[in-house]
């Protein structure tokens, strides 16, 4: 999508992926309902592709498990994401991809909040406000070109 133009962040720092989740006895027990926890949400979002680089959001440290907060009982999820540079123009698109992934994966009862890690982006208030406005998000996703770009970020590659 950025075609032949220069990448904004040509040499990003790459982080190591965390390993697979270790299953406990309770996890394997069919009779016990598993509450949705931080790790489960993180597993949903870690492999989302960055729009510019052939890397995942986890590898770029845009998302980290410690910045995910789930409260299954209250049906709330909060995800903080850190753009790689403070003037990243892809911040809204990354936020939208995170939001869409969670909207498509979680039960309808969940209230999903996606925002920028405070202090890490020049326009964080403006970006956060757009991401929090469900009418704006719904209208944006009716734009087929934008939806295509989001779907590309969400398309799975080999893990």
């Amino acid at each position: 999508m950025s075609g032949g133009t220069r990448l904004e962040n040509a040499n990003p720092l790459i982080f190591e992926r965390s390993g697979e989740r270790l299953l406990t006895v309770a996890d394997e027990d069919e009779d016990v309902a598993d509450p949705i926890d931080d790790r489960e949400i993180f597993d949903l979002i870690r492999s989302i592709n960055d729009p510019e680089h052939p890397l995942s959001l986890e590898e770029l440290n845009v998302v980290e498990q410690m910045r995910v907060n789930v409260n299954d009982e209250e049906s709330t999820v909060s995800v903080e994401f850190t753009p790689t540079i403070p003037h990243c123009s892809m911040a809204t698109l990354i936020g939208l991809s995170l939001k869409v992934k969670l909207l498509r994966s979680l039960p309808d009862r969940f209230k999903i909040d996606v925002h920028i890690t405070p202090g890490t982006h020049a326009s964080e208030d403006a970006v956060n406000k757009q991401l929090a406005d469900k009418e704006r998000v719904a209208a944006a996703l009716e734009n087929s070109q934008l939806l295509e770009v989001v779907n590309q970020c969400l398309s799975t590659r080999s893990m």
Partner: protein
Amino acid sequence: MKGALELLQRVSAHADACCWYVAWNPAGTLLASCGGDRAIRIWGKEGDSWECKCVLADGHQRTVRKVAWSPCGKYLASASFDATTCIWKKTDDDFESLTVLEGHENEVKCVAWAPSGNLLATCSRDKSVWIWEVDEEDEYECVSVVNSHTQDVKHVVWHPTQELLASASYDNKVCIYKEEDDDWECRATLEGHESTVWSLAFDPEGRRLASCSDDRTVKIWKESTAGDGSTDESWKCVCTLSGFHGRTVYDVAWCRLTGALATACGDDGVRVFREDPTADSEQPVFFMSAHVPKAHGQDVNCVSWNPKEAGLLATCSDNGEFAIWKYSSDS
């Protein structure tokens, strides 16, 4: 004045999509709903239950965000994310598309008919408010485009008796418009909300305006005129209802028959507020009379009082449902 909200019926109106808005016709006999499935549905009562009377499916290419009935009840206007506003004319048992109003650059967020029936207002993410005139031959003409907001305009509402319009915006402000020399202009800007203002409602006499916001409050505004009779119009916030709503308040409705104030909230709840009759009218006091915490399984987008039957309330939600409630209080 403790009250209660009793659920009468729940209807799955828009399958696999959000139900964004519901509106009663002026006679209170029909309910129009619209949603993310791009359709408008008209519901009427058959015996004890609400049934779908007709479906208006081909009017829009994208989400239908709001619908509004004309004061005479013969026309329906629909505002869509496809940047158009469609005007429908009611025939015996159906609706036909009369005309499509174009002009906004992007999503139309709201459409409202003036009480006279001759004027229509629309607003959009393009930050503008358009005023349209209707003549006797059902011809629509845009007479004013007003750009007073700096962001997405979410809602427009007409005063119940005067030719006065109010708009609510993503820029956290409310604007009041009046006609001056054949042109509509912004006469007052109401500041105070700390985030997007989603909806507005005038009280039955049109003396006060209620606004609801993403800042989780509802504000009541009153026009204060200078004592010397000058036309300096300023609206002051005379009451703020805070601490009641857990998330964004998406809609507010002021009942013409009882004066009760209902709200639709992103915490899935529906609330009804009543005014304390002993309080000073310059400093009104509202208290919460009824609250249904999980009125729907998802966000409540709209709340609408039936114009003829006191206490009858319709609400709708992101889960595609609408619900009919009976509000009663022991006052």
